[in-house]
């Protein structure tokens, strides 16, 4: 079999017409993948077996433990590496473990050495340049994005598909931009709008809707590891919802991503720092706190700072920097020291794992802020008239009665208080090594020195950082298409996956930073206006064969709704959803006995009235015991930064949408709405289907749902069953509710 593969591989090379005898090879395209997969695990950053490492050119050309040199540029045949790769003795041949390299691979390496063994930086370390947009034409080619996508499709004999059916398109757009289904009116007016700008009008409307900020906040809160509790043992309550509200507001106001970054990483150090910017710094106060008796506060303060380093890198750099905590990076050019130099940026804030979460600032709810403003205005007026001291005193009293809640924030220590940062041997905080000063890693560049947290934040969004613009554009792309152009959204390093469309990624990154001036709304609009986004979801055997995982974007992705969307949709369609925004987190219905953490008397107090029906992102998140139905649909427990959720498809999900009282109540509410559609059950069922999916059911679907209705109403009970017993039971469950529950469990309903 192996020979077949080999000959296939050779065949492929020949078929591509490559004369590989002396051809110039690209290090990044041809050589790096071989080294990364076949050699790196023994000859990388951590292990340098035999003193040979291929992490950098300098190391690869260096003298090994044996005193020999493995690679002699220009002289492949004299290079020890080639001898070792081709030695017939399996004891000597490299790689020592695993199959030998194919002759095609060896030939590539030979050519590369003969050509001078030139090194290229890993693609993601080279700042993105705006590439030429390829000339492409086609029916659904609408903007630059489509040119890049079509070019790749064409290579495979494919092209962009026609536009998605309008009702499905607007439904997906609505979920993608604001996390909610469209309203029936939205759909109707879109269908009736014959203007060529009809689609764009809906896009603009959704981008401007307040629900937009709520939707995107969910994504950001996964990265910010936002939760309403401190984590660890007792997992006590934490008051930090004001940060969640800040994120919603920032998205809705389209705060440019550079500002968005600066304020969260160093809002307290900005020259114009105000309350709002301090609230933003709670981003890094979402680290866990340990109140367990007997714990060392310093140990957990250090753990928090380490988490901040890792999170900063996960979010803005898309790099697994956490490896470097214990040792030099095995695959990417980061030293052990780089980690602690970066940590020094974040090691000088006042917080120290104290139970009171100090430092904190007082914050008010939106309603409180309003009342306070009114009172302050009145006091000012009364004060100036100076003739009603009683009234003045009573107003003053009312003002003082409005008690704020506290919000943990970042506060930089003064110059005298600064902590010294040490390198920790193997990442162990009890084994401090040499002292280090703040700096960005040596493999990255900066034209001026980066000395403190604010400077670090500015560097993050500067043009010399090759990562932030790519990582962020990729993240938004991933949110809309189900996977990023770099599928490993969390890893842009050499072990991450290569971009499926490198030029498109760079184009988007530069567009985002320059033309769009870091406007997220502009970036999203550019993407959703593309033909690639708007194409149909249809799949046929050929498409599945050529592009089984839709890496080429040969169709619209069909994705299961997120945990938040599953809940929000059920509430929206049934008419239960509250549109109330902001404020402390709420507790919708959850089964008894879920909260059982130790040493903590707190209990789940189901919210009253409308607060039971708020959007999912307002649901109280306790890290050790998150809201069960959300977890079932893959929402994380927010202990750590999560860069992407992997959607699962499990029986427990079916049980949630079938039986969870929240979802059953939604079915009951939908059934009430269905009743208004007419006397005939078929009219009611048809209306319910349309309310949920915005189109009439086909005759077959209507037939199936009607069958369920009749079964439930007792009309279709088979004769051989005990009629009396069944009819009794079924009196309790209104047939229309059962039908509504079924509609809300259809694949088409939980998928967008």
């Amino acid at each position, binding site marked *: 079999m192996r020979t077949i593969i080999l000959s296939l591989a050779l065949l492929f090379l020949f078929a591509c017409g490559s004369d590989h005898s002396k051809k110039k090879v690209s290090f990044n395209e041809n050589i790096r993948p071989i080294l990364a997969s076949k050699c790196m695990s023994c000859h990388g950053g951590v292990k340098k077996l035999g003193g040979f490492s291929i992490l950098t050119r300098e190391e690869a050309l260096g003298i090994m433990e044996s005193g020999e040199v493995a690679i002699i540029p220009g002289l492949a045949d004299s290079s020890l590496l080639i001898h070792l790769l081709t030695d017939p003795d399996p004891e000597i041949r490299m790689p020592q473990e695993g199959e030998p390299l194919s002759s095609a691979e060896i030939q590539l390496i030979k050519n590369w050495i003969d050509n001078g063994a030139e090194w290229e930086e890993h693609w993601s370390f080279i700042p993105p340049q705006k590439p030429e947009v390829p000339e492409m034409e086609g029916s659904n080619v609408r903007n630059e994005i489509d040119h890049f996508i079509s070019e790749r499709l064409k290579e495979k004999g494919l092209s962009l598909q026609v536009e998605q059916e309008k009702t499905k398109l607007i439904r997906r757009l609505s979920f993608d931009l604001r996390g909610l289904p469209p309203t029936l009116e939205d759909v109707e007016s879109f269908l009736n709008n014959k203007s060529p700008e009809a689609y764009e009008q809906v896009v603009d409307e959704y981008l401007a809707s307040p629900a937009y900020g709520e939707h995107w906040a969910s994504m950001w809160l996964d990265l910010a590891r936002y939760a309403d509790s401190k984590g660890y043992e007792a997992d006590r309550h934490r008051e930090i919802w004001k940060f969640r509200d800040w994120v919603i507001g920032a998205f809705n106001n389209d705060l440019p991503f550079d500002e968005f970054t600066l304020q969260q990483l160093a809002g307290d150090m900005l020259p114009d720092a105000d309350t709002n910017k301090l609230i933003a710094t709670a981003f890094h106060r979402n680290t866990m706190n*340990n109140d367990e008796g007997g*714990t060392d506060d310093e140990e957990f303060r250090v753990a928090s700072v380490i988490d901040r380093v890792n999170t900063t890198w996960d979010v803005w750099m898309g790099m*697994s920097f956490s490896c470097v905590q214990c040792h030099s990076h095995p695959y990417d050019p980061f030293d052990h020291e780089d980690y602690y130099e970066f940590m020094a940026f974040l090691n000088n804030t006042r917080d120290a794992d104290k139970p009171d979460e100090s430092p904190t600032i007082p914050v008010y709810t939106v309603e409180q802020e309003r009342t306070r403003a009114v009172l302050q205005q009145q006091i000012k007026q009364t004060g100036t008239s100076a003739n009603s001291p009683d009234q003045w005193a009573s107003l003053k009293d009312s003002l003082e009665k409005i008690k704020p809640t506290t919000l943990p924030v970042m506060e930089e220590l003064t110059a005298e208080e600064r902590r010294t940062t040490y390198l920790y041997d193997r990442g162990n905080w009890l084994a401090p090594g040499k002292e280090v000063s703040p700096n960005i890693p040596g493999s990255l560049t900066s034209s001026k020195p980066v000395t403190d947290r604010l400077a670090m934040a500015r560097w993050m969004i500067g043009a010399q950082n090759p990562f932030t613009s790519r990582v962020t554009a990729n993240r938004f792309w991933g949110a809309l298409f189900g996977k990023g152009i770099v599928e490993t959204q969390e890893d842009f390093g050499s072990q991450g996956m290569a971009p499926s469309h490198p030029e498109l990624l760079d184009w988007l990154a530069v567009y985002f930073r320059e033309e769009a001036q870091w406007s997220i709304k502009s970036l999203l609009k550019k993407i959703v206006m593309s033909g690639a986004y708007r194409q149909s979801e249809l799949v046929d055997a050929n498409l599945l064969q050529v592009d089984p995982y839709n890496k080429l974007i040969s169709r619209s992705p069909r994705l299961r709704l997120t945990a938040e969307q599953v809940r929000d949709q059920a509430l929206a369609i049934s008419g239960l959803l509250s549109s109330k925004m902001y404020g402390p987190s709420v507790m919708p219905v959850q*089964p008894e006995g879920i909260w*059982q953490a130790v040493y903590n008397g707190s209990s789940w107090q189901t919210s009253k009235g409308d607060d039971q029906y708020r959007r999912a992102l307002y649901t109280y998140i306790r890290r050790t015991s998150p809201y069960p139905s959300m977890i*079932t649909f893959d929402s994380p427990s927010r202990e*750590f930064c999560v860069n992407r959720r992997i959607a699962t498809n499990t029986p*427990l999900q079916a049980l949630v949408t079938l039986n969870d009282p929240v979802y059953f109540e939604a079915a009951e509410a939908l059934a009430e709405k269905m009743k208004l559609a007419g006397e005939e059950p078929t009219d009611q069922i048809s209306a319910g289907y349309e309310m949920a999916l915005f189109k009439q059911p086909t005759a077959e679907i209507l037939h199936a749902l009607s069958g369920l209705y009749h079964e439930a109403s007792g009309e279709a009970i088979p004769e051989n069953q005990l009629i009396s017993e069944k009819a009794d039971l079924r009196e309790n469950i209104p047939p229309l509710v059962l039908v509504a529950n079924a509609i809300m469990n259809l694949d088409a309903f939980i998928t967008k």
Partner: protein
Amino acid sequence: MNIYNESIFRQAAFNTRRHFIKQMTGGIGALAFSSLMGCNTASEKMMASNPLKAQPAHYIPRAKRVIYLHMAGSPSQLELFDYKPLLEKYDGKDCPEELLEGKRFAFIQGVPKMLGPQYKFAQHGQSGAWVSDRLPHFTKVVDDVAILKALHTNEFNHAPAQLLLHTGSARLGRPSMGSWVTYGLGSENENLPSFIVLVSGGKTPSAGKSVWGSGFLPTIYQGVQCRSEGDPVLYLSNPKGMDKALRQKSIETINNINKKTYNEIGDPEILTRIAQYEMAFKMQMSVPEAMDISREPESVHTAYGTEPGKSSFANNCLLARRLAERDVRFIQLYHWGWDAHGASKEEALDYGFKDRCREVDKPMTALLQDLKQRGLLDETLVVWGGEFGRTPMRENRGGKEMQFVGRDHQKDAFTMWMAGGGVKPGISYGKTDEIGYSGVEGRIHVHDLQATIMHLLGFNHEKLTYPFQGRDFRLTDVHGQIVNDIIT
């Protein structure tokens, strides 16, 4: 062809390269297969086939499943298994300086007093195992177990130590042992989750549900907590007024319409959803049956000390046997309340500790006897223990003598026992120093324990990995030595 197989078949047919390599690798199995497909992501593996399909192991497995009895809070080894006559002699004396040097404690301050064993010890069985009088039932089964006396860990606080033990890392976010096992072994029961968690003692462990979480593994591998009160699995019971037949009809209708959607669109994920709705219905039938202990004969209830309908460790032990019979892969029990510092009556060696011993002694003994009698012990690995050990010194929180007798946390020595599933019966392995403070022989780090458990299940702990954030992660991090001496 059932719909699940059809889904697998369709995926394979659509992806010729995958299909081709699958043919080629033949029996090597999915793990080797995925490593060959270097460019494949885990999510693709998930999509490609039933992720809970049993996968071939690296070695011939000795155990098919694990019943893990975790004693949350950590029982004192010095009052149960690790008999130290010398400590008796030192009782009440100041702790020598050299024992305190370089040590960090949770609560001990200044110079504490040594504390002798609080209960009488005797040797039992053919093996002559030392067991204290707190576990009279257990003394009857000592010849079936291996008592491991020199476990050690890196953490001396509950939450991090529990995480290290169950997930291989002291910080949150890693998959639990049960998740790894489920990921590696898949499921052998189509009607039940393959990783089931049962909690008693009124509280979940300190580290919360993360100890049975799936971390960065897909959530399909996380532990499913079954409860002996209320719905045994969340949202398992139908809404009031809906009978089985009607639920069946409703799922049939949903699946019927989904099948039409599949025919129209061709997305294979729809087939998985159809299968999962079928599984949900099967679970509705089989979980309540598996979790219903009321029909067990009286003799069984007497042996375990069970009371149907209540939440207790005894009930959970009996449930563990029932789940083992039904081929659940990883059955994780937690019993809370072992943290005997002496700070309160409930947390004292002279009070609460005695109650805990009573609560576990009879049922865990009955579980071993029952498994053995049913021929299940050979293929079921039973593991018992806490997350760390207790100090040979008496705790003196705040530098003062406390009202009740207790011991502080310590990480350098504690006792666990294992039985069945390829473990040597009737042995004591490892030794601690004369006061039971540190292991001196046969030390087993918690990572070694994990490596050994994985080995007994047929997996090389270094090879069962999952890519996350740029590297391949495994349960044992970068550590773990198999303890071959305790394997038959």
